[in-house]
């Protein structure tokens, strides 16, 4: 696993290091799968491994992670977003994220927390994804204010979220507008339903 509380002196080391194959339970129950599809689609990417790295400007971790505040990029197999001046989020397959974090020098004022279970992640994708987002979020989603690779903390349907523009490439090679939205897990079903409702008018 990504980050463990393994500093406990009284913990007994586990004999068998392998993790049983327990499914990640997403809180989102998609009642009507058709409603999540269409020209704007909604997908649940909650099971993706997610880490938060906090680092002060003068740390090795901050230099290694780079990026300007408010921007994000794919870096190899993981995705890195500098969501706050001193916070980066790293997502991807578990082993990739673990590897990346393991390589970081967390010396100085730096730390990391596994947020896989505390933050859910949805994707809103489609030509009119920005219009759907405008129904639930006051950010300006125009290309000049929120280009691909930008990110910001914002309220979405009155829930505190992180919003990242991460366009995808469609089957025909064309770029399709897409937003990743992260929120506290407990709001998951509410927010997913609010997003389904927001995109309904666009099909």
């Amino acid at each position, binding site marked *: 696993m990504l980050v463990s509380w393994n500093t406990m002196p009284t913990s007994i080391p586990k004999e068998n290091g392998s993790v049983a194959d327990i499914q990640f339970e997403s809180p989102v129950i998609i009642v009507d799968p058709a409603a999540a599809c269409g020209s704007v689609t909604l997908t649940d990417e909650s099971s993706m491994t997610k880490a938060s790295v906090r680092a002060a400007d003068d740390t090795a971790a901050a230099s290694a992670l780079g990026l300007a505040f408010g921007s994000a990029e794919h870096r190899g197999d993981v995705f890195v977003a500098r969501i*706050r001046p001193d916070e980066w989020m790293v997502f991807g397959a578990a082993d990739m994220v673990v590897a990346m974090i393991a390589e970081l020098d967390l010396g100085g004022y730096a730390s990391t927390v596994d947020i896989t279970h505390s933050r859910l992640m949805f994707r809103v994708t489609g030509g009119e994804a920005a219009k759907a987002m405008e129904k639930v979020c*006051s950010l300006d989603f125009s290309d000049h204010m929120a280009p691909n690779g930008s990110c*910001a*903390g914002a*309220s979405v349907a009155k829930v505190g979220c992180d919003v990242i523009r991460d366009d995808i490439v469609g089957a025909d090679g064309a770029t399709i507008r897409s937003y990743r939205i992260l929120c506290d897990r407990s709001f998951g079903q509410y927010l997913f339903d609010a997003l389904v409702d927001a995109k309904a008018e666009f099909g």
Partner: protein
Amino acid sequence: MLLVPCPNCGPRNATDMNYRGEAHSRPDPDAATKEEWRTYLYLRDNPSGWLRENWYCSSGCRRHFQLERHTLTGELRNPPLPGRKTAGA
């Protein structure tokens, strides 16, 4: 809706922020008299005019900062300061 210039995020709606009121300094709690301490707790200048005040960008960067805002006209002056100290400068 007031547009509040966060020094990190840029201009954001006031609803993305926590308003934390008039900037004032915390006296040394061990040295303060009752009067000084309660002046800190309760008394305010509350001017109809320029006010230095604290904001917290709760939805965005989660950083505190200070603004100078005119409480009657809503105008702002001087760039916002990333908030290090609550005390008025």
